[in-house]
């Protein structure tokens, strides 16, 4: 059972995957509570375009893709704030065209078709030392920012309009959060893949929400669940030899349905108790 731990790459993979899972769980709380679940899905696709462009222009992937993701998110905000277009439609337009640009560039240049799979579905073996540093760095920065901005984020997430009346700089808070989100998605890309990130962002907070009515508890649970799924998912991927992304997602989904079943069961028991 502990056999894989003898491999250094596996230990690194486990650590990275756990960190990424926890990080997605952390920001996922705000994404889910703002009703923006679709943005994780959209942004990861947009960032794929940014990654390809960075590669072709020989810009550092982490920096190029983060900036690209951030700009895409701002463009989405700008488009939907004009009122006539809903945020969901704006996400569809901006991110899919960015993704299409990435795909178009790849098919034109055909230089890296092999890493295409890795980008879409995640490949933990491709994680380099630089990636590890990036993940740890983004993890520390976003955890600190979310800790320091806890009450601001809570107020603006719960009631953005009244938060503004109370003099909170809601625009800046949103922008900062978007920047963190873009950075988290970029560093998670290697592990989870473009198509799988959305689930890693949404499933942990939703599972946590089922278990608690308290915001603080929900945050801690979501981080714990995210981290646990990153760890468990990677472990499973080693044993049945599948890509890390789908493995983490399937692991999380299983956990989610178990949570749902558990809470329904508890409710059933409670209702029976009330009736007697």
């Amino acid at each position, binding site marked *: 059972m502990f056999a894989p731990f003898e491999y250094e790459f596996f230990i690194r993979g486990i650590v990275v995957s756990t960190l990424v899972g926890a990080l997605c769980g952390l920001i996922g709380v705000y994404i889910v509570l703002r009703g923006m679940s679709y943005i994780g899905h959209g942004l990861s696709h947009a960032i794929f375009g940014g990654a390809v462009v960075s590669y072709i222009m020989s810009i550092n992937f982490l920096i190029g893709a983060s900036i690209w993701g951030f700009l895409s998110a701002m463009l989405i905000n700008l488009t939907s704030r004009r009122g006539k277009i809903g945020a969901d439609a704006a996400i569809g337009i901006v991110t899919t065209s960015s993704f299409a640009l990435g795909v178009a560039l790849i098919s034109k240049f055909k230089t890296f078709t092999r890493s295409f799979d890795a980008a879409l579905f995640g490949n933990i073996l491709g994680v380099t030392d630089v990636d590890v540093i990036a993940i740890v760095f983004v993890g520390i920065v976003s955890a600190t920012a979310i800790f320091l901005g806890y009450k601001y984020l*809570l107020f603006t997430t*719960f*009631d953005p309009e009244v938060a503004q009346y109370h003099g*909170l700089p809601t625009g800046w808070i949103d922008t900062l959060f978007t920047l963190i989100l873009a950075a988290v998605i970029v560093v998670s890309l290697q592990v989870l893949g473009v198509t799988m990130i959305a689930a890693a962002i949404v499933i942990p907070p939703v599972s946590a929400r089922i278990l608690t009515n308290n*915001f603080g508890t929900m945050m801690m649970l979501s981080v714990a669940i995210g981290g646990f799924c990153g760890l468990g998912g990677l472990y499973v991927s080693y044993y049945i030899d599948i890509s890390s992304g789908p493995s983490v997602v399937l692991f999380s989904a299983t956990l989610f349905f178990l949570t749902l079943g558990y809470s329904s069961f508890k409710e059933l028991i409670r209702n029976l108790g009330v009736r007697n």
Partner: protein
Amino acid sequence: MLHPIPHQYEHEEPIVEVKGVTCGYDGTPILNNVDLTVNRGDFVGLLGPSGSGKTTMLKSILGAVDIFSGQILVEGISINTKNPRVGYVPQLETIDWNFPVTVEQVVMMGRTSYSRLLPWYKNSDKQIVHEILERLSIAHLSKRHIKELSGGQQQRAFLARSLVSNPRVLLLDEPTMGVDIKTRDEVMHLLDELNHQDVTIIMTTHEINSVAAHLPTVVCLNGEIVAAGAPKDVLTPATLKLTYNADLHVTEYEGMTLVTESPHFFGRNAGTSQNSNSHYSEHN
């Protein structure tokens, strides 16, 4: 019933001044050329049909509506220069009741901008929150999830959030909507009490007889100010016609002003079993 007596001050001291304001959203004016002065200690009810701009009026005082001309002063200072010290209680329908927060957490939000650089709330913030919760008699519910409260308790929780910043002016959007008669009375008595503690109140309502008629001042809105003053002066068939574009009937009953609709009956058997002896024309 309720007959709030406004706090009397020797000199009238304007606290909210709306001067020739035309305002709205995205370049479209919603309120036109509004002039309104609310004095310290006033208790004002805004009346008007749906879409007449009641909520817009409140939001303009908060600086959340585009002002095309004119200006708004709170405590003598333009709201553009300084964030006004005004409390706001939104319509409860706008709240996300599934959000995982407790009563205490919601009320605490009202103290967010008081310790800007600290990531957490100070003990003094917690103390103030607790005092307000006690004062509104919902302290025992502080750890409850917001969804697990009655309508009146929910109203008080959001009232508490606006009070912890100690505002001199309180704006409430339909605070008596969707609650039963007793709860409505509780909410109104609470507001009356606050009014006596030197909080100036402006609230919107759809309830003419049970709320507006008992306030010292009512303002009728319909894209502009139709009339403003004491209920007995404002609630007349002529102003109500201009406000609601409907023929309404006004009677006096034991000193109370009562506004009723002209008699008309709904349903396919209307008028057959009922004794409709009205000489008012019916709407078809």
